[in-house]
């Protein structure tokens, strides 16, 4: 077997539509920046977006922008710029590449979308520390740079059971944001709007979940590498009808693939879980490598992280608190292991890949003995690859390829 053989890459037809709605989204944001009456909020990717949208903010997600810096392989030009002003190369490379790009006055947005000159300057920066501390530090930098208010929610991390007390604390923090946000937006908070936005978000994430679940079939229709791209609208357009329409379209296409027995990987022999961040600059290479190895990487913590089951328009504050606290990244090892176990069983997976992402400890779940425990618990092998989400200097391609090929050879010999 050789990973270097020619591969057929099956393009997803909905990609064109996705590009269009993403372009519309960025133009809309750009328009808002130029329009005095429109207010822009930056929000961390699993932050209280629905609340912000209901208050009339146009919402921008800096992590999405940072992922673009990674995917376009520009990040390593910018990370050193942030390092030079005191932001360590060991901290989140989303943060360092994004701030570095800002300092160099460059953005992939202006390359991709004619007429957009820069990232949309916000009126408020809103974080949730449910995922890590870096998001707060990241937005704090812009807050100082532009003298723009920074606020957010501090969530306990590494928790097992989610107690009522924890949720009550978060609900309180969310409610405390409201008057401040009202003042900035100039709009009165309207609980019905909040409910409506949440209902739309819920529908979007349920459709996204259905898309991902088509991969329970063999052959699986969509690879993890495709899913990381098609997840875009679930991140930045959740809460809108546009996102719902998009996932209906994508779901239809994946269901057609199911009906026709079309897999993302020709002649699928093995099915794997990807645990951890994508290596953004290497999506295409990774995708081709696995196609060449007849291996489908088809389930992941990362893509599942935008499924918010708890959303309940009947109680939008409490369910916001719950939805954004019960996600994988916030939970303890026991919860995470059980979660992966369920996915491995439901998707009939043969092995688990852990990506030890140098600059994102919270998404590098191999670091506290989990691979070893899961191997025993599930009786399937795992492999840990060293790399990074954006900083390709932390990634040794040859070594990773050899390890992946060796892992597949191991599965073949089992």
């Amino acid at each position, binding site marked *: *077997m050789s990973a270097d053989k020619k591969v057929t890459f099956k393009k997803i037809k909905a990609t064109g539509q996705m590009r269009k709605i993403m372009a519309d989204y960025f133009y809309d944001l750009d328009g808002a920046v130029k329009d005095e009456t429109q207010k822009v909020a930056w929000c961390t990717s699993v932050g209280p977006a629905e609340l912000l949208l209901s208050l009339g903010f146009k919402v921008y997600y800096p992590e999405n922008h940072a992922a673009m810096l990674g995917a376009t392989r520009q990040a390593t030009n910018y990370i050193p710029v942030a390092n030079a002003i005191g932001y360590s190369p060991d901290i989140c490379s989303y943060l360092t590449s994004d701030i570095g790009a800002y300092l160099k006055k460059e953005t992939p947005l202006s390359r991709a979308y004619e007429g957009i000159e820069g990232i949309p300057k916000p009126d408020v920066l809103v974080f949730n520390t449910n995922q890590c501390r870096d998001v707060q530090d990241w937005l704090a930098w812009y807050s100082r740079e532009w003298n723009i208010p920074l606020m957010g929610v501090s969530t306990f991390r590494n928790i097992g059971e989610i107690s009522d007390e924890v949720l009550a604390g978060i609900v309180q923090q969310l409610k405390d944001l409201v008057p401040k946000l009202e003042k900035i937006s100039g709009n009165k908070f309207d609980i019905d709007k909040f409910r409506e936005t949440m209902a739309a978000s819920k529908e979007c994430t349920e459709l996204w979940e259905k898309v991902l679940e088509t991969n329970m079939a063999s052959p699986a229709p969509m690879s993890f590498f495709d899913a990381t791209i098609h997840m875009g609208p679930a991140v930045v357009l959740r809460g809108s009808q546009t996102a719902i329409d998009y996932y209906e379209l994508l779901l239809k296409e994946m269901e057609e693939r199911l009906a026709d027995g079309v897999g993302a990987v020709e002649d699928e022999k093995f099915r794997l879980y990807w645990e951890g961040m994508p290596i953004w600059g290497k999506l295409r290479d990774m995708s081709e490598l696995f196609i060449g190895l007849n291996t489908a990487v088809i389930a992941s913590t990362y893509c599942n992280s935008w499924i918010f089951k708890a959303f309940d328009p009947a109680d939008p504050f409490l369910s916001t608190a719950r939805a954004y606290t019960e996600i994988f990244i916030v939970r303890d090892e026991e919860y995470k292991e059980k979660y992966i176990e369920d996915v491995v069983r439901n998707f009939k997976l043969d092995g688990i890949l852990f990506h030890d992402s140098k600059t994102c400890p919270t998404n590098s779940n191999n670091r506290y003995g989990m691979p070893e425990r899961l*191997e025993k618990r599930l009786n399937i092998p795992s492999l840990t690859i*060293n790399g990074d989400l954006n900083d390709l200097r932390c990634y040794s391609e040859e070594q990773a390829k*050899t390890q992946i090929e*060796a892992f597949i*050879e191991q599965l073949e*010999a089992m």
Partner: protein
Amino acid sequence: MEFFAGIDIGASTTKAVIINTKGEVIGYSVTDSGADFELAANQTFGQACEQAGCALDDCIVASTGYGRNNVPFASFAKTEISCHAEGSFHNFPRAHILIDIGGQDSKIIKIDNDGKRINFRMNRKCAAGTGAFLEEIANRLKIRLDELNGLAEKAQDNVQISSYCTVFAATEILSRIREGSGVPEIIKGIFTSVIKRVLEMDSMEGDLAVSGGVVAHNPFLVKMFEEKTGKKIFVPPLPQLTGALGAALYARKAKEV
């Protein structure tokens, strides 16, 4: 007559092994990989053929190592992880852990009673725990690589080198020299550092075998390994050729199918 060849193009050296149908090694060679992998493969294979008294047409060839896809005359390629496991199980047909310390990377491979690979680990991206670390330090101390083993043997004492990083380790060594440590003690210290880096890669329960270029050239390091682990450690007759042997064994298996 039929022969099976394995060519292992590593980052530092290229190894070729030729075996007969019984699995006996009848020819082998080691050369520097240099910058032209294809050339290295040709030369090394040619030398091994000469020793074995065979030609390309008599052989089924399998390639392995970082340059495994640069051997145009190989029928197929396998990763060095699989080949090392295969070669090591041929040498020690029982469950064991193989520790291979190569020029640029180290591997820990767990093999079960049937010769199946259960698990493997490679060192992280840096030189710690590999031959590259020894090379760099030898270079700094202006010592030839083939002198390391003899010097380490002479050491009266063990000098502690604790840095992971090769560059930091080199600075540490400068301090040790200033403190008056002898060169043999320092060399023993860097051997200890390699052993420690390797041992912390995985748990080492059960029988252990070691292989790789570093082991081939430094038998004293194996002795130190034994002292450190309190275990008898198996060393194959041709420690540097485990991967190439494994590839040759795969070539033989391919013929059986």
